[in-house]
C-alpha cells in the first residue's frame, strides 16, 4: 500500500489491468492512441493529457482513435457494448455531451429497460470536467448532474487516485452504462494505490474523516477542499465529518442520513451550477428524510448560476473555495433558531 501514484496513472493502470484480464475491453476516443498526425507508437501521446499513454504499444488495435465526432464515437461504443464488447470510450470534455447525448440517454441508458432485460450495455464513458484551467465556458463545466438525472446511467466521480482505480475497474466490469467523470485538477494528485487489481462497489460513500458537529458532503475535487476546511476548523474546536458519495448514481442515501443524524448540520459542496444539482438533490433528501435531525438550515456551496468565466480573476472566485466552505460551516454552527 505504500506505493504512491498519480490519479491519471491510476486510471491508466485500471485500463491496463482490465485489458490484460479481459479481451473484450477496448478503448476508443479522440487521440487516445497518439497525437495529431502520430507516426505510430513512437509518437503516441495517449489522449489530450496522456492518460492512455503506453496502452497502444501493449494492446495495439484494441486502442482505437476515432474521428472528431462524438456522436459517431459514442454511438459506436454503445453499439459495440450491446453486441458483446466492453468499450471504454473517451469523451474528451464533458461539455461535448451535447453532440452525443442521444446515444447516451436515449440509447445506452434505455436498452436494458426497453428490451426487457435481454440487452446489456457495458460501456464506460470517461470524461473530464471542472473549472480552473482558463479553458473558458465550453471546456470547464460540471455536467455530472445532467447524467445523474437519467435513469439507466451510473455516474462516478472519483476524488482520489485510490478511488479512481477501483471505481474504473468496477465501471468496466459493470453491465450498465457508466459515466466516469474525472476532474482535470485531480490528474496530478498523488496517493496510495495498491498494485493489485481491486474494485470499489458503486453506491458506497466514503467517510473521508469522522466528525461530530457538521457533515460536509463533497463531490470530486471538492473533497480535498472539504478536508482542508475540516483540518482548519478542528483547531477551532469544530469537528467536521467529510462524506464523499463517490457515485452520484447510485447514491448512498443511508451514509449521508446517518451522518446528519449524528451531527445535525449539513453543508453540501458541489462545483456545479446550483439549480437542479447534486447540491439541491442531497438537500431535498435530507430535508425529506432527515428533517428531524437538523439543528440548522442546510448550506450549499456551489458555483453561481452563470457560465464559467474566461477571465482568470473571475474564474477563481467562481469555483467553490475553502474560504466559502468554511463560512458555510460556520453559518451552520452559529445558527440560532
Amino acid at each position: 500500500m505504500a506505493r504512491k501514484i498519480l490519479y491519471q496513472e491510476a486510471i491508466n493502470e485500471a485500463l491496463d489491468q482490465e485489458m490484460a484480464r479481459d479481451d473484450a475491453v477496448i478503448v476508443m476516443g479522440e487521440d487516445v492512441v497518439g497525437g495529431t498526425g502520430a507516426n505510430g507508437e513512437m509518437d503516441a501521446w495517449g489522449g489530450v493529457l496522456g492518460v492512455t499513454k503506453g496502452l497502444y504499444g501493449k494492446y495495439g488495435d484494441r486502442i482505437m482513435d476515432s474521428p472528431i465526432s462524438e456522436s459517431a464515437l459514442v454511438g459506436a461504443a454503445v453499439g459495440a457494448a450491446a453486441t458483446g464488447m466492453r468499450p471504454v470510450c473517451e469523451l474528451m470534455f464533458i461539455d461535448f455531451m451535447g453532440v452525443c447525448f442521444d446515444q447516451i440517454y436515449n440509447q445506452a441508458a434505455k436498452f436494458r429497460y426497453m428490451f426487457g432485460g435481454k440487452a446489456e450495455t457495458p460501456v464506460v464513458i470517461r470524461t473530464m470536467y471542472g473549472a480552473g484551467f482558463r479553458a473558458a465556458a465550453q471546456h470547464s463545466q460540471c455536467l455530472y448532474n445532467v447524467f445523474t438525472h437519467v435513469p439507466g446511467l451510473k455516474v462516478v466521480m472519483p476524488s482520489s487516485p485510490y478511488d479512481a482505480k477501483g471505481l474504473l475497474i468496477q465501471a468496466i466490469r459493470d453491465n450498465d452504462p457508466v459515466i466516469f467523470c474525472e476532474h482535470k485538477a485531480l490528474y496530478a494528485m498523488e496517493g496510495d494505490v495498491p498494485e493489485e487489481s481491486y474494485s470499489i462497489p458503486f453506491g458506497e460513500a466514503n467517510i473521508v474523516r469522522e466528525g461530530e458537529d457538521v457533515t460536509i458532503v463533497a463531490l470530486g475535487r471538492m473533497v480535498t477542499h472539504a478536508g482542508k476546511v475540516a483540518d482548519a476548523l478542528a483547531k477551532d474546536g469544530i469537528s467536521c465529518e467529510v462524506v464523499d458519495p463517490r457515485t452520484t448514481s447510485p447514491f448512498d442515501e443511508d451514509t449521508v442520513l446517518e451522518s446528519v443524524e449524528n451531527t445535525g448540520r449539513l453543508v453540501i459542496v458541489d462545483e456545479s451550477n446550483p439549480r437542479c444539482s447534486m447540491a439541491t438533490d442531497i438537500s431535498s433528501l435530507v430535508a425529506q428524510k432527515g428533517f428531524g435531525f437538523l439543528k440548522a438550515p442546510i448550506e450549499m456551496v456551489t458555483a453561481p448560476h452563470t457560465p464559467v468565466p474566461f477571465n482568470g480573476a473571475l474564474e477563481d472566485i467562481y469555483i467553490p473555495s475553502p474560504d466559502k466552505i468554511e463560512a458555510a460551516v460556520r453559518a451552520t454552527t452559529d445558527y440560532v433558531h
Partner: protein
Amino acid sequence: MSDAAITPITMPKWGLSMIEGKVIEWHVEENSTIALGDEIMDIETEKIANTFEALDAGLLRRCVAQPDETLGVGALLGVLAPEETSDADIDAYITEFQANYVPPEPPEEDDAGANYEWLNLGEQKIRYLRMGEGSHNIVLIHGFGGDLDLWLFTQEPLAANASVYSLDLPGHGQSSKDVEDGSVAGLASVVVKFMDELGISSAHIVGHSLGGAIALQTAISNTDKVDAVTLIGSAGIGEEINGGYISGFVAAESRREMKPLLKQLVGDPGLVNRKMIDDILKFKRLDGVTEALIEISSGFLSGDKQTVDLRGAIADLPMPVNVIWGSEDQIIPAAHASGLPDNVTVNILDGFGHLVQLEAASDVNKLLQS
C-alpha cells in the same frame, strides 16, 4: 531542585508507522497515585484506539495533555513526581521539556513500508516483516481475514530480545491471493516452508485465532522446529465458533456491514475506528480475496462448528504450550481454554475480546516473554 525525582509520561509509539496520537481521555486524576500497568488514558492512533498503561509508578502531579489534543510520539502527557517536589520545579521541568521536544518527522516516502519484505514460495509471494536480533526466534501468525499488522503492538516489544517474524498468510494482506491449499495443514506447511526459506531452524510460534490452529498444526507435524507454541483466542481446540461473524466478514462489502462485525472482535467496541474499517474494506476489495477467504473458511469450519480439532495431539507435544484468551471473546469462546491437557499453561484476560493482543497488548506481551 532535582529533576531526578520527576518522571515524564510521554506519548507511546505503537507500531512502526505511528508518529502521533490523539488523547481521548484521562482515566486518572491529578494527584492520584499510579501503579505500574494502571490504565492511565485512552489514545487513538491512525490504526486503532487503545488504552495506555503506566510504564512508571508514582504520584501524578500534572496532566499536561488535554483530551482531543493530537501530539507527536514522545510528547509530554503528564508528570510524575513525589509530594515534596515543589510546583515551581514541576513548572520548570515542563517548560524545559516542551522547549526541547522535537516531534518525529513523518517517514520519507521511500521509507514507508520499507521494512516489509517479500519471499517467493513456489508460485506464492509472501509478505513478511522481520524485527530484532536475538538468541531465539519468534514467528507470529495472524488469524482469518487479518494480516501482519495485527501484531502492531506485539512485534516491536518482543523484538527487544528476539528475532521476530510476522507474515501475511496466503490470501491475506499483501501476500498472493491464490491460496493453493487453504486447509489448516496446507497453511501450516506454508509456515514451515517460510521458516526453511529464511533459515529459521526453530522458533516459538505464536498464532491468533485461525493462526493458532496453524501454529498448533505446525508444532504437531514439526516438533523439531518448534521451541514453544502460544495459542491466542485459538481455533482448532474446541467445536464452537461464531460462524455468523465469518460468513458476514466474507460477504460484507460496505462500511455499514463491516462495522458491527468488527465490533464483535473487541471487548470495547469503541476501539473500532474508521481507519481500521477502511483498511479491511481495502483488503477485501482486492481481486481474489473473497475466493481466498471462502476457500480458507471452508477448511476449518462449517456453519457454527469448527471442523479441525487438534486437541488430541497436544498432550504428546514436547515443547511448552501456552494458551491466552480474552474472557469476552465473541468469536471463539474462552471456554475452549478449559479442559486442556496438563502440559498447557492457560491465561484468561478478563474483559477483553477476540483481538486480545491489541486490546491488552502489554499483558499479552508479558506472557509471551515469560
